[in-house]
């Protein structure tokens, strides 16, 4: 962290996460963090919780055994009793180990007996960093399809903090997908103090007229790179969804109605991914406005492969987005 300029500080994406945790833990004694290896000086596999035990004590920074079902379920019980646990699963890939606790118990509780379950799961997701099939996944579609959850996916340090604040304050189970490739490679201005980014509102990351790119997480950076390369010839509007459930359909629809063209991008497997929902919805609601087919860009229908040439072939990037935009605009 460095330079303070009128109420903001330059931080990396992961520093912003830690700052968000610290902000909420200072503000609200009911907020605690729990997960594998998050305590002590160690501070988690990615160090996102480093320093928290020193400041807040072991009671509020709880190292758990490697038992995702038990500790996510326990977080649900704590939430029911009024606490606000923030769970770290070590990698987003391991969220499937606690699946029942999430999609069956926590997701349905308020609908069934009106009891709020105010937890957050922080899930370090995403690939591109040579971590292989089990440390590179983007499993958000499973949760977007499941009724009763909220899902967020910050693309910037400011939102990494802002969405975390909002998620912790939300009275529902929120899954917060972090993008590992952004952790230390993306820096940005982050508001100090407690400025939350509201859940459910997308952001126009860049204005443009010829085509709208709708995306989230690390792919926002890739889309902006693509847009840079295409300007001024083609001006690209980039929408950073920020929240995947509930989707901000209004912002997306307004932009696509303006540009008449859409490219939907995510790093997750393209097949039956969140992008399919967005494209299908636009196709239905904005049929008359579309000047070209909506193009989807995403991961292949393949486990994320380890070896660099394979992972690069699997994973979309600025080049694929550029090609999709060109094709869509040329249509």
């Amino acid at each position, binding site marked *: 962290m460095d330079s303070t300029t009128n109420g903001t500080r330059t931080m990396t994406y992961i520093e912003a996460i830690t700052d968000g945790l610290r902000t909420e833990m200072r503000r609200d004694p009911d907020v605690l963090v729990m997960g594998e290896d998050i305590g002590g000086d160690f501070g988690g596999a990615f160090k996102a919780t480093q320093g928290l035990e020193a400041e807040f004590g072991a009671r509020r920074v709880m190292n758990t055994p490697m038992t995702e079902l038990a500790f996510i379920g326990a977080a*649900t019980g*704590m939430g029911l009793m009024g606490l606000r646990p923030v769970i770290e699963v070590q990698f987003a890939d391991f969220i499937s180990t606690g699946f*029942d606790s999430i999609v069956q*118990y926590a997701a349905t509780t308020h609908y069934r007996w009106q009891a709020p379950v105010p937890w957050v799961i922080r899930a370090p997701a995403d690939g591109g960093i040579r971590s292989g099939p089990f440390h590179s996944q983007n499993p958000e579609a499973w949760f977007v399809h499941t009724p009763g959850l909220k899902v967020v996916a910050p693309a910037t340090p400011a939102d990494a903090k802002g969405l975390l604040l909002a998620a912790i304050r939300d009275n529902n189970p929120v899954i917060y997908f972090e993008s590992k490739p952004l952790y230390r490679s993306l820096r940005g201005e982050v508001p100090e103090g407690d400025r939350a980014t509201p859940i459910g509102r997308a952001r126009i990351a860049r204005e443009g007229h010829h085509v709208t790119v709708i995306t989230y997480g690390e792919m926002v950076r890739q889309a902006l790179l693509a847009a840079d390369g295409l300007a001024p010839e083609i001006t690209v509007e980039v929408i950073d969804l920020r929240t995947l459930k509930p989707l901000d359909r209004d912002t997306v629809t307004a932009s696509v109605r303006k540009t008449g063209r859409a490219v939907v991008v995510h790093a997750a497997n393209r097949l039956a991914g969140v992008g399919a929902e967005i494209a299908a919805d636009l196709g239905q609601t904005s049929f008359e406005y579309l000047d070209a087919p909506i193009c989807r860009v995403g991961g292949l229908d393949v486990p994320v492969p380890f070896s660099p040439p394979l992972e690069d072939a699997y994973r979309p990037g600025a080049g694929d987005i550029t090609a999709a935009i060109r094709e869509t605009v040329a249509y």
Partner: protein
Amino acid sequence: MTLLPDDLNVDLHYWMRLTRTMDDQLVNLWKQGRGVGTTFNQRGHEAISVGAGMALAPDDVVAPMHRDLGCYLVRGMTPRRLMANQLGRATGVTRGRDSNLHGCGDLSLNLIGFISHLPQSMPVALGAAMSFSYCSEPRVALTFVGDGSSCAGVFHESLNLAAVQRAPFVVVIENNQYAYSTPLHQQMAIDDLAVRASGHGVESRTVDGNDVEEVYRSVKAAVGKARDGGGPTLIEARTMRMLGHAIHDGAEYVPQELLDDWSARDPLLLHEEKLTSRGLVDHEYLARVAEKCREIVDDAVEFAESSEWPDPGTVSDGVYAA
């Protein structure tokens, strides 16, 4: 073993009788085609659900399961709300959202609702216990699981986490000899389910699940220990599921001799015998209680059947908390 106070024994009897009456009525309703969806049979489980429920203090939290009708009743969930839930009415605990006893939680009664996926209530109840430690509150959380559920991974994960956290947590296994149609020996290679605790460093014991006094006493002791910072306890209560798994199940797979053996030890009748033989109550009293319970249950049925169905326009309401 010292006897329980007389008043308490009389109370235990009342709740068991009410549970039995309501369960019998549920069976009737379904046989008459007045049910909606399915309903779980409670017969045989009354001493466990009532005895454990009564052993808790009002501030304690409990997550009862599908054979714990007695516990819901003891903890203040009214027969009306429960019956209306069974019949899918707007006045039911879940306003028609969830079926039979599923989801019958109410935080104002310190009751946590369950889901079908067994035993997912266990870590949730543990989390409640952990929150009491977090807040330094002298409260305890309890939940029930079946013999079948004691095979499941989340049961073991929860016991392990409870032990390492020394959480004020009590788990009661209702060993009713079967998981649906599957007898114990096809589920596990142990005879004594209390040993499930030993691999996690949790204390445990086995009790007669048809003796409500014994259930009460052992749960009370475990709750007391937990409240005093002594950590979790597992209690195996042995009983027999006297009817099918749920209303549609004729349970032809259960040997008749097994049922005969156990029906001689009906938990409600056993307790009634105790009360009369100790001279605490007479047969007239028992008849009066039975009558009163019938009235309560009849009222609940009438309430439920005359309650509104949920408004389909509200189907999407309440998915999220505000």
